[in-house]
């Protein structure tokens, strides 16, 4: 409940209020949205009045609408409506195609209020009867402008629109000033939003590109149905209507084509005149050239670099070679010098020895003795080294005749002893050589039937293959020999026994030698004819021989046989398992041994069969 005012109290403001403060709020809810909307529109009102206000503001917009009275309005002939400017009739000449539907409606309303025949009649004006009154123009204008299709048709042929396209010469000088307004006004025909601007000299390539691609793909809504010569509605029958339609369509298409041509010409002209396009092209060209140049430069540089490195390498190589040569030369020179010095020295010493000996008249009076001594001294000179010569000379120089004679004789003795020894050694060597060759011949000639290395090898093999205890062993061996021998000599059991015994007598060293010789021979043959079928046999033999290097002990043999039995042929990874069972042998060894055994057994069987067959005969 408010109080009653006291006397003398008046309406007054006594204190200012505190200013507003800023708070951060949560962006949720419809009232926040409403607040935001009001703020962007910058209208102040309380929330409750929001809706009213909306209407109010719209009304005020209408009030703002300025209608320009068309001075010729009253003189218009409604029959000639096609050539009238409907915007001007409604007083919207300043807005034209930008006028909103609301504005058109409002303008029509205002015009009707003012120009309706009834109103004018009331004002005492003379009215032309029928449709001939100019008010019909207003109705027609509203009819056309409020229908979007008809309005579009009218807008398309807006008489105030400047269809002109600037010529090239115009555009060349002042491109932006000339073309900007042209594109600006043509952009009203686009059916797309966001028309790119022509821009200026500093526009980026993308912008310019976007601009031209927009205009080259220009999608215009402009159409020319307004200019149709005939009216479809006037037709009396269907056929006539169809004909009219056809005519109109052709005319419209023609006009549309012309319009597209116009735009195309405009864009072409602009494109050809655009200084930016030229600039971009130049830039692109320059860039490409620069790129090309850079590439060429890089290539050249690389090439040069490579050349340089190659040169440097060559130079280094050459220097090194030169140096080496130089060094070698130096070394050779040095060596020659040294040699010469040594030679000289030795010559000198020899000379000295000779003169000393001569001085001493070769330590004898006797002519023949002195000759012999001379020979001996000459021998000394030849044989002795530089140092021993020097020492000898020193001794000779510092001693008496007897002493020196003794020294010389001692030297001579030594030299003679040495010579003797050398001679003996040489003789021993020669003897040994002859002896060994003799032995060789002797070994080969045993048994009178020419046992060559192959046969010997074969024999050894056979003896090993058929150990003592084999049934009719020597026959079997002989047979085996005859079967496998390459020499073609037939041997009987006796021969074989003799030879084997002979061999047993030979010391193991010699046996080895035979083996080695056999191997070398085989190798030579093998190298010479590697693809020979016959050699398959010796190669196996060789393998066996090399495997024999670590012979199979009976223990191992037993283990292997046991393993072979326990793991039958179809056991997966049979040889691995067998190798495991025989711990001292590898898988390869086992396999090899197995092959050998198989071969042995086969050979044994074959030989036995032959023997049995012979005995049957």
């Amino acid at each position, binding site marked *: *409940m*408010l*109080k*009653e*005012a*006291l006397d003398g*109290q*008046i*309406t*007054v*403001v*006594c*204190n*200012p*209020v*505190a*200013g*507003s*403060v*800023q*708070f*951060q*709020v*949560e*962006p*949720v*809810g*419809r*009232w*926040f*949205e*409403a*607040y*935001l909307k*009001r*703020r962007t529109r910058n209208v*102040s*009102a*309380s*929330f*409750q*009045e929001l809706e009213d206000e909306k209407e109010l503001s719209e009304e005020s917009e209408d009030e703002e609408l300025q209608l320009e009275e068309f001075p010729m309005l009253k003189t218009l002939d409604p029959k000639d409506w096609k050539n009238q400017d409907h915007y001007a009739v409604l007083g919207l000449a300043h807005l034209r195609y930008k006028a909103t539907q609301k504005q058109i409606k409002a303008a029509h309303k205002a015009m009707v209020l003012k120009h309706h025949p009834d109103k004018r009649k009331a004002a005492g004006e003379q009215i032309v009867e029928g449709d001939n009154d100019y008010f019909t123009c207003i109705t027609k204008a509203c009819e056309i402008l409020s229908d979007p299709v008809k309005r579009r048709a009218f807008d398309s042929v807006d008489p105030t629109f400047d269809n002109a396209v600037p010529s090239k010469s115009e555009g060349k000088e002042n491109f932006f000033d000339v073309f900007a307004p042209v594109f600006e006004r043509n952009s009203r025909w686009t059916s797309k939003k966001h028309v790119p601007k022509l821009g200026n000299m500093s526009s980026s390539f993308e912008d310019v590109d976007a601009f031209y691609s927009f205009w080259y793909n220009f999608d215009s809504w402009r159409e020319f149905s307004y200019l149709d010569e005939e009216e479809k509605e006037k037709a009396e029958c269907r056929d006539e209507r169809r004909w009219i339609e056809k005519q109109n369509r052709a005319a419209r298409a023609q006009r549309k084509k012309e319009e597209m041509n116009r735009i195309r010409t405009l864009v072409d002209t602009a494109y050809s005149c655009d200084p930016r396009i030229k600039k971009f092209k130049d830039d692109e060209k320059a860039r490409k050239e620069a790129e090309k140049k850079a590439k060429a430069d890089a290539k050249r540089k690389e090439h040069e670099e490579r050349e340089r490195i190659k040169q440097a390498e060559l130079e280094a190589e050459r220097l090194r070679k030169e140096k080496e040569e130089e060094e070698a030369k130096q070394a050779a020179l040095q060596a020659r010098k040294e040699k010469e010095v040594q030679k000289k020295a030795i010559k000198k010493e020899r000379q000295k020895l000779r003169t000393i000996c001569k001085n001493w008249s070769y330590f004898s009076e006797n002519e023949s003795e002195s000759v012999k001594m001379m020979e001996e001294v000459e021998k000394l000179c030849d044989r002795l080294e530089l140092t021993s010569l020097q020492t000898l000379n020193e001794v000779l120089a510092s001693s008496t005749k007897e002493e020196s004679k003794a020294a010389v004789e001692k030297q001579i003795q030594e030299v003679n002893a040495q010579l003797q020894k050398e001679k003996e050694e040489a003789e021993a060597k020669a003897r040994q050589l002859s002896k060994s060759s003799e032995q060789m011949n002797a070994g080969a000639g045993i048994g009178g039937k020419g046992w060559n290395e192959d046969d010997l090898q074969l024999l050894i093999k056979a003896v090993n293959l058929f150990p003592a205890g084999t049934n009719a062993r020597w026959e079997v061996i002989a047979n085996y020999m005859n079967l496998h021998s390459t020499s073609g000599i037939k041997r009987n059991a006796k021969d074989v026994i003799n030879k084997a015994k002979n061999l047993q007598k030979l010391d193991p060293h010699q046996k080895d030698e035979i083996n080695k010789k056999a191997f070398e021979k085989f190798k030579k043959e093998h190298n010479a004819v590697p693809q020979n079928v016959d050699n398959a046999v010796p190669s196996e033999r060789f393998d066996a021989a090399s495997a024999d290097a670590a012979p199979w002990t009976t223990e191992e043999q037993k283990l292997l046989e046991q393993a072979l039995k326990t793991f039958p042929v179809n056991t997966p990874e049979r040889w691995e398992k067998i190798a495991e069972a025989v711990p001292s042998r590898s898988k390869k060894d086992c396999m090899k041994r197995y092959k050998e055994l198989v071969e042995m057994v086969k050979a044994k069987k074959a030989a036995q069969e032959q023997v049995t067959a012979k005995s049957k005969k």
Partner: protein
Amino acid sequence: MAAIGVHLGYTCACVAVFKDGRADVVANDSGDRVTPAVVAFREKEKIVGLTAKQGRIRNATNTVVKVKQILGRSCNDPHAQKHTAESKCPVVNADEMAKYEIDTGDDIKLVSPEEVAKLIFNKMKETAQSALGSDVNDAVITVPFEFGVEQKNALRHAAEAAGFNVLRLIHEPSAALLAYGIAQDTPSGKSHALVYKLGGTSLSVTLIEVNSGIYRVLATQTDDSIGGECFTEALAQHLASEFQRSFKHDIRGNPRAMMKLMNSAETAKHSLSTLGSSNCFVDSLYDGMDFDCNVSRARFELLCSSLFNKSIQPVVSLLEQVGFSMGDISKVVLCGGSARIPKLQQMIRDLFPDVELLNSIPPDEVIPVGAAIEAGILLGKDSSTLDDETLTVECCASDITVKEVNDSGADIYTVLLPSGTPLPARRHHTLHCPGTGSSVCLELYQSVQNNCATEAKKVAQIILKDLVKKEENHDILAVLTMKRDGSLHVTCTEATTGKSEAVTIEVAS
């Protein structure tokens, strides 16, 4: 026209759609209205939701949970580090960005948290679109109030990557208020609302001033250490000790068994919100032994009593912080799944005896519903983007009051224009004065904060004279209009005679 509101929480995600003027939560393909925010990476597929959560027992290292904790944070952030330490899925630091290391059998992939969030959003989008039957993408996403710019951006990018057209990001507490439509129908007036959100891993209490339909957060408190999982954990520990008592096995050291037990405890906890007792049953929990245990609601409340006290405590401290009493709060909104717990609701009711407790919408659906409503409001607005400037609003600095006398003759001050009213604002008030007098005096005061004590400063008086005396009271229509700068225009009109007086009070320079 339809729109979507999405809430992506630490543990769960929920989606609501706005259609035909209504916002409703939609159930996902397995029929649940809330989808666990868990993403499991398998060799060939990525699974979101309940299946992923249940499969976590077997696939813990390739299952991402609580991705929101690390989303948009750098590796050095303490929150992110805490998450890294807790996550069963290894988190690695790749180019200063935290990423999950996912082992998909043949190779190890790095997956960013944004990508995980994207998968969840994708699932939400599919859920909403299948319910709507159309490919609507417009959505409002909720974010916690304490999220920073980077986290918001990360969330927005994740949502956009999932194909959403994000209309706006709004804060969870304001979404909760919007879900109940607070001050949306009658916008004038000022009130305070408290939003109590107890989610899976965090508790947040927010005090919001509602003025003229616009929400403003006055204060907020967040406690990351308490949430629904704590209750589950407490219950699971109890169950583990029960198991130990009967089977003499301690399963606390066995992570897989504990995970099973946690899942079972969670189900039991949920049913305890509606039932008096719940049966907890786990087949072959440990060493082939089945576990069966009955938990009563009283037992559960006893187990969690200290946790409940801890959950309530922030409310008291928040009110203390802003100097409000319980009576200043007019509404309390409950949200977050754990706010369903009857004991908690009871405790809040005890704390605010005269206050309306809003829990008619299921608490875990409040926020997405609010988001969907906001999406509905924003739908069709051409520019819903906001910059920072639009979020600040000029407001009335202090209350504008008029001095009146009450029936007993004492002076009272009636608030005509409350502080915090967004400007510009216009308020209509009808005041009365005894019809026996021929004049009336309106004395306008502005309350001024002066060393904590509020004292009224007289700013103007308006006198209406020569009123016609009559039997009934004079009705005085007072219209107060305050402009954005804070200057006040007051018009007083006597209803019958139309006599009026107007003053304009300028702003102190």
